[in-house]
């Protein structure tokens, strides 16, 4: 006890002698490590160091020749004082250089020099304490001048006496006399309930009758204490949780499924000693249940609670509480006379404190943090949807199961494939959240909706590997106006000349193959890079080139679409590198575009033909191919960088 005080840096009162402190320095060779141990760990006496090097911690034992001012019978011998030890360390080190080979040697050494410092520290500490004390005493506060130590102490004593007189009842408590507690019982009770931020209740085990609740229940469940006492707990528990609560209140014989698990092995202890846990006094309980919450506001309430009509209201009326407590039995001697239902001499009860879960779990339906125009999706690193929240259906028209397992690239507008693929690559290499620019997503009805997403890759905290990508999607503006989707309308125009159904499907299939493979490609790229990065020879030739350096895929796009591409495997690097600027192709694009564009837009179209030959008119699979090509291309320094974000593909 005393020793622990000292180790925590409390300067004992008896350290005031101005003579020399005698240090007995116990050390072994391993003490040499000591100065390297960070200061705090020495001070805080970390378990490891002290334990793994049991003797290495130099014990500085100071002999106090004259304990100057022991308040009580303070021991004259002090061991392991923190401050002392600190000063001792330097000593030990120099000492060690001299006697390095001596193991387990006891030295008695006298030191004078650091003593004044120790004294100073002690005084400083005392002064700080006195200052803190004076701040807590009302009569000290108004005085402008700094009071001397003794005055402060005297005032503190006066103040304590005043407090004691004020709280006489608790101080003269029977309990207090027997076993003084630092706080009066009522205060402590209050403190516990405030800290626990919950309410207490006592329920009888046989009928589930509420025998007692603390007043704070009204704050949490909005029922007054008097309303609850005497009622059955089951009337206030969610119907589906009644069995759960009964289980907790009842005997073990009825519920053989209850088991204990051992934290050390993590295995279940199968054979419980019968009745050992159940109902015996002191058995702990910890469970969750949903309890009714009166929605009526107390202040204005003067009518009976209407049985709620709608199901939604019903769910809002419950809140999840965590009950922790234990079983105990009271001798029910005085109860026997009054209550008929008590045949036992002991009444078993569950005594528990209930905390309402801080989470908004009370109202799960309202918990969804996303606004109606937002939805969350999750895709695997190759872009396949693995999670789609229900909100997506209202925005996109697809049921989640229609999207799950398919690649997100199948739904992206071809204009955006390049940008999104870039973002996808970026997000796989970054820990940051990355915002995509606005893009178009094909809805179930074939139209496009403008979205903006924030992507981040989820990295498993243990393996540090990317598990999936989370995307928070925001709907931008009104979904799908005609002006927003010129290219899709173009496509539709084109396709309307043919039979709608069959080509539509076939192009859809193609989209599936190619668009989906963009994601796969990017994922493979990541895996490759991981592999390359693992090998020491990887150097700088990472397949990833920074997105900024990556030239626009203009050229690669340009030369691709005219060629017959049937399979992504046929895409080869040589072809990519024969970047022919796609002049001919650009021309063909231009005429198709201008055909539909008002004359005023020609300059815009020229720009298009210059930098990115009308991706709009490529069929989606071709665009996808082009993106794949560009991904394969590692050193495409052709042409100038083009900011795709600022390009106006539509008017």
């Amino acid at each position, binding site marked *: 006890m005393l020793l622990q005080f000292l180790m925590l840096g409390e300067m004992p009162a008896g350290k005031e002698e101005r003579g020399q402190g005698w240090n007995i320095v116990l050390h072994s060779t391993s003490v040499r490590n000591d100065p390297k141990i960070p200061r705090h760990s020495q001070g805080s006496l970390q378990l490891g160091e002290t334990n793994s090097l049991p003797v290495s911690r130099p014990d500085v034992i100071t002999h106090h020749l004259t304990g100057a001012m022991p308040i*009580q019978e303070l021991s004259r011998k002090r061991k392991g004082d923190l401050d002392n030890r600190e000063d001792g360390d330097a000593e030990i080190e120099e000492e060690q250089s001299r006697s390095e080979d001596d193991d387990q040697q006891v030295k008695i050494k006298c030191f004078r020099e650091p003593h004044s410092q120790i004294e100073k520290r002690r005084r400083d500490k005392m002064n700080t304490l006195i200052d803190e004390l004076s701040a807590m005493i009302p009569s000290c506060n108004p005085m402008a001048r700094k009071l001397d130590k003794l005055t402060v102490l005297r005032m503190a004593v006066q103040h304590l006496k005043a407090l004691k007189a004020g709280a006489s009842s608790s101080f003269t408590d029977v309990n207090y006399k027997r076993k003084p507690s630092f706080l009066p019982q009522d205060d402590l009770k209050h403190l516990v309930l405030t800290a626990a931020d919950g309410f207490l209740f006592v329920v009888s085990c046989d009928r589930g009758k509420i025998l007692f609740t603390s007043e704070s229940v009204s704050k949490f469940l909005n029922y007054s204490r008097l309303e609850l006492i005497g009622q059955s707990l089951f009337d206030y528990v969610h119907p589906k949780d009644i069995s759960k609560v009964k289980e907790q209140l009842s005997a073990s014989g009825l519920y053989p499924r209850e088991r*204990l698990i051992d934290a050390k*092995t993590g295995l279940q202890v199968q054979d419980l000693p019968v009745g050992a846990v159940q109902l015996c006094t002191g058995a702990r309980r910890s469970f969750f249940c949903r309890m009714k919450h009166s929605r009526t506001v107390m202040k204005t309430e003067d009518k009976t609670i209407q049985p709620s009509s709608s199901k939604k209201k019903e769910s809002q009326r419950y809140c999840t509480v965590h009950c922790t407590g234990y079983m105990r039995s009271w001798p029910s001697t005085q109860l026997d006379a009054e209550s008929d239902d008590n045949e036992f001499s002991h009444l078993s009860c569950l005594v528990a404190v209930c905390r309402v879960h801080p989470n908004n779990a009370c109202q799960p339906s309202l918990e969804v943090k996303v606004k109606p125009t937002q939805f969350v999706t999750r895709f695997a690193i190759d872009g396949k949807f693995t999670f789609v929240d229900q909100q997506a259906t209202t925005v996109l028209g697809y049921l989640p199961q229609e999207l799950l397992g398919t690649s997100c690239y199948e739904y992206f507008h071809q204009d955006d494939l390049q940008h999104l693929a870039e973002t996808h690559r970026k997000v796989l290499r970054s820990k940051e959240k990355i915002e995509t620019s606005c893009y178009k997503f094909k809805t179930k009805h074939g139209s496009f909706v403008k979205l903006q997403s924030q992507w981040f890759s989820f990295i498993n905290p243990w393996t540090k590997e990317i598990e999936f990508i989370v995307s928070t999607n925001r709907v931008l503006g009104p979904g799908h106006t005609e002006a927003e989707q010129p290219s899709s309308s173009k496509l539709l125009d084109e396709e309307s000349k043919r039979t709608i159904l069959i080509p539509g499907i076939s192009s859809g299939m193609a989209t599936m193959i190619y668009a989906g493979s963009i994601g796969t490609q990017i994922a493979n790229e990541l895996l490759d890079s991981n592999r390359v990065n693992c090998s020491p020879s990887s150097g700088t030739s990472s397949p990833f080139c920074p997105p900024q350096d990556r030239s626009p895929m203009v050229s690669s796009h340009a030369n691709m679409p005219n060629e017959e591409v049937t399979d992504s495997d046929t895409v080869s690097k040589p072809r990519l590198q024969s970047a022919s600027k796609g002049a001919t192709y650009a021309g063909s694009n231009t005429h198709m575009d201008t055909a539909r564009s008002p004359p005023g837009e020609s300059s815009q179209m020229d720009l298009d033909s210059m930098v990115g030959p009308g991706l709009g008119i490529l069929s989606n699979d071709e665009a996808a191919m082009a993106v794949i090509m560009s991904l394969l291309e590692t050193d495409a320094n052709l042409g100038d960088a083009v900011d795709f974000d600022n390009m106006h593909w539509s008017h």
Partner: protein
Amino acid sequence: MTPERERRRIMSCEAARARRRAESQVLIDMSQLLPLPSSLRPQLDKPSIIRLTISYLRIHTLLSGFADRQRRDEEGERETRERRGAGARERREEGDRERRDAGDRELGEGREEQKKEMGETDLYLRILGGFVVVVTTEGDMIYLSDNIREYMGLTQVELMGHSIYDFTHPCDHKEIRDNLDLTAGQSGCGGLRDFLMRMKCTVTHKGRTVNLRSAGWRVLQCRGCLKVCVSGPSLTCVLFTCQPLSLTHTLLHTHTFTSHHSMDMRFTYCDQRVTGLLSYRPEELLGVSVYDLCHTLDLHTLTKSHLNLCSKGQSVSGVYRVLVRGGGYMWAETHSAVVSKPRPSQPHQSKPSPPLFVACVTYILSGVEEPTQLLSLGQMN
């Protein structure tokens, strides 16, 4: 040395001695005013007495602040209770039922009285399964309930008035500091706090008490709230309950299931009850990550818990949604602990032994919500 100087020296010595004696006397008086067991008093040194006095005054300031508010609350409540009581009575038509209620209520009141006699606070602290700590925003522990000894081996008197940072794991200091911060805490929850910290513990698994120097760390779940005391000396404190987290003696009931995971949280074992709750068969969960089973919006909750698990060895997930096979989700909370290879030779090792797996107990908190909604690939089959 002149006799004059000698005389002066003696005089100053005398004066100093008198001063020290006076000081000691005041401190002895002070220690006797502190509500401490008399057996403990002789063991206290000067700084300890002052330290405890400061704590005592601070907790009193805090509590008197409470008392004011409580009085106001109580008055308000009494009013409403009267009104509500009247309303409630009106509601009950059958006279005999009312009589029985009244009887029961008396019974409740009687029990209350009875309980008071039995030492109510012991009850409160026992129920808690932990202890109460009051910490100022600077980190001074101004109060700890005396049952801390049961859990940590350290006593109230040893700790009171000291800084919390001296007794907690250095790696957790930032988190503690964040939680003591005035503005911290989950927004909109009225300054609620919920975090894990490691505190020194001198009780071994076998119940032996060791020296503070060879103390181990014990993970505590700290939940509580911020209290600002405006009257008198300004004092801002965080009140919280500290409960050791342990999976032992968790009574498992039908709405829980246990599972084992690799350190990256993939299932390596799951008990049969999961089928009744979430409809997955245990064998098909093997190798599946818990992250695949959770709602994306709760990813952060689980990640935080996983990080705690990696750093502290134990964690409580908080509430999250777990996806049910075939559609929908349920609210759940998972308590988990890293199970390490036991090293019987050195029970208190600084170097953690290699983790074997993560043991989890998952409590299902609700029924299936939105049962028709398929959200993830894992729910389909």
